[in-house]
């Protein structure tokens, strides 16, 4: 187990290095100049050249990359061109809202989708199955922002049960109560959760229905085991690997999903930080974020792989 983890972690390093090189090159070779954005509308070309020089953007690419990588190895992701703050501090500051949104959505999706998908597979062709299919099609088809505006209109504007926008932190000087935190996130969770509920429920339904047609299920039923035990202990347990895989992929995809949701609900998370950094060509922040997202993605994949060892004893052998 330990050697498996170590091997997997070591294999991550070249991946991260390649990601860092690609991102660095894409940013430097793409159109746009942070110095020009910083200089503003009144600037002259001279002003822009001066700012480029201060930011070190007039050095050659190899030298710029070397300096950046040297700092990253020491745990320093550099400073934002705009905010003048360490990138690591910015990421840490924005992590709580994004994690709250992403993990809450994942939890909601799993808690709703797995039972629904399992029941739909159990009663295939029934009203629940048909409703779930219709919901899945709708969940995949309707854009996130449309769901968001519809929910805001109903629950925040018409009924006034929930707030339109904002985020109340759980920790720190501005922390509110747990209920304040939950209240701010209910609509974002529902918005972002819709597509993941659709995705996971469909996968659960397919996997469980496949497992239900296996010989060992027939054997279990022939032995007189109760239907619920058959469903949970035999069918769902054996269908778990593909379900966990899709949950892992879903959580990784949430990284992209939070950008739109954070924008619509004005949640100050990593998504909005990314949008601002890209629009302003704040290279150190973009590079830091991509590195962070890559690490997160790799970690999620690793967790999924490790979970296989527990879910399917055959893999251990």
């Amino acid at each position, binding site marked *: 187990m330990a050697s498996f983890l170590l091997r997997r972690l070591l294999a991550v390093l070249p991946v991260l290095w390649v990601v860092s090189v690609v991102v660095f090159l894409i940013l430097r070779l793409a159109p*746009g100049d942070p110095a*020009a954005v910083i200089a*503003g509308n009144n600037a002259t070309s001279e002003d822009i050249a001066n700012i480029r020089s201060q930011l070190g953007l007039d050095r050659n690419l190899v030298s710029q990359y070397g300096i950046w990588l040297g700092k990253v190895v020491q745990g320093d992701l550099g400073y934002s061109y705009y905010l003048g703050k360490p990138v690591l501090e910015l990421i840490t500051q924005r992590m709580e809202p994004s994690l709250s949104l992403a993990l809450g959505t994942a939890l909601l999706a799993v808690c709703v989708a797995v039972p629904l998908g399992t029941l739909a597979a159990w009663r295939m062709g029934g009203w629940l199955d048909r409703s779930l299919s219709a919901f899945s099609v709708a969940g995949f088809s309707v854009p996130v922002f449309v769901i968001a505006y519809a929910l805001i209109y109903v629950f925040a*504007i018409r009924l006034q049960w929930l707030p*339109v926008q904002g985020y109340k932190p759980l920790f720190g000087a*501005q*922390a509110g*109560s747990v209920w304040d935190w939950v209240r701010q996130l209910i609509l974002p969770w529902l918005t972002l959760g819709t597509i993941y509920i659709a995705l996971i429920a469909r996968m659960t339904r397919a996997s469980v229905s496949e497992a239900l047609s296996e010989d060992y299920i027939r054997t279990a039923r022939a032995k007189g085991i109760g239907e619920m035990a058959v469903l949970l202990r035999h069918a769902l347990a054996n269908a778990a690997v593909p379900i966990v895989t899709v949950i892992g992929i879903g959580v990784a995809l949430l990284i992209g999903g939070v950008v739109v949701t954070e924008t619509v609900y004005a949640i100050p998370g990593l998504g909005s930080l990314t949008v601002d950094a890209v629009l302003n060509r704040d290279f150190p922040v973009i590079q830091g974020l991509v590195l962070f997202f890559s690490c997160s993605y790799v970690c999620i994949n690793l967790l999924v792989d490790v979970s296989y060892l527990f879910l399917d004893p055959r893999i251990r052998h």
Partner: protein
Amino acid sequence: MRRSWLKVMAVVLVASWLVMPAQAQNTLPANKVFRFVPHANLAVLDPIWTTAYVTRNHAYMIYDTLFSEDAKGNIQAQMVQSYTTAKDGKTWTFKLRAGLEFHDGKPVTSEDVAASLKRWASRDAMGGILFSFIDKIETPDANTFRFILKEPCAIVLDALGKASSNVPFIMPARIAATPGTEQIKEHIGSGPFIFKADEFKPGSVAVYLRNSKYLSRKEATSGLAGGRPVNFERVEWVIIRDPQTQFNALQAGEVDMVEQPSFEQYESLKKTAGVKVDDFSPAGYQYVMRFNHLHAPFNNVKIRQAAMLAIGQQAFINTQVGIPDLVRACRSIYPCGTPLADENTSYFTGVANPVKARELLKEAGYDGTPIVMMRPTDLSAITKLPLVAKQQLEAAGFKVDLQQMDWASLVARRAKKEPPNQGGWNLFFTTWTAQDIGSPLSSAMLNAKGATGWFGWQDEPRIEALKAKFARAHEGPEQKKIASEIQALVFETAAFAPLGQYRNPTALRSNVSGMLQTAGVPVMWGLSKN
């Protein structure tokens, strides 16, 4: 029985944990907290390092100025108590008001003023011109500073009372000692609000508390001048990027004011219960089309003039804004309604004349070289302008290569002097507040110093000579005459084309009153909530 009690206690504990805040927070009455949505994310806090309007507006919250512009556009004393000018016009002596204090408790002194002005002049064009007249700044005592000029200068008060970026805000000397090319790290002013640095989250919220020690002037509030009464204990700038969410938040009463709602929401806002529309900046903004003077075909003045003949202002403002109440055609390079405005614009009528443009184009020998026109797809304030220009220029016989990009790419590309087929450009569009272009000395587009000038790099020494003359001329008719001469040269050389004016009203909750009309700055003093 005992087990039941334990259960009840557990439920109570969990419920308390759910509803109790982690830390006790001060609760202020609702009418003492004001939530404002600025037009852009407040990222940079240094108003000298950047010209961004959102930073300028933030700075008006926490810093004070020596002079300010009143509602009629006149310059009035603000931090200054009195001033005198020597007979030869070369010595200006200013006395600061007694008792002015920075937020850190230190008094405002003439040394702070001198350091702040030096830093400002190192970045601001008008400040640079003023300092080219200044031989030295003396600080004979803590409340007095003196300009010793090399020769008389007519723009001293205009420069010190400059309302838009960069504004000569006064900060402590130790902070103002930071070079203008570096961002300051502390944000301490002597203005009516104190910046809560510990609560500032870029991209989310900026918090200001009322400065109870602020020494407001006794005069009535007028524009940015006069008294600055503050009726809120706490002001929060809430960053909401999405225009629809801004609208929803205002409708739900979660915010009190949205600085620049989108034009598409204007009619809905007017009809929404609990919301009203008002205007703090009646002078508004002007759209502009800028030529690159370095490269063909616009290195030929006749071709530039042909392009100006092809332009019809009404189509631009109708397409981009689309609300008749908010737009007006204006041919003057100084926005209509401002003191130097002059609609005597020779051949430029602001009405599209494709026939005449085509004739001039033929006469100029236009060879069909495509015009590289840059369109910022992510900047809703100007994104439709290039589409109109393309149609109008093509109607006059131009070939147009419309290139779409985001604003960050556009501002990088417009700094390139290479020919259009090597990464350069021919045309771009922008917008200015009336205050930025109301004077020949503050208008970046009138920087005609060639390669060291503003993007487009017009090389026209006659404009520069007239600007120098303007700075020395007496205020009033003499300056206005020179401003008109500059405008005549702008049209003669077809430096750029004004595309019309517009206003961008603000949206407020109906219970907010007292909004001031200023030189384009949304101020939080004077406002109150019922």
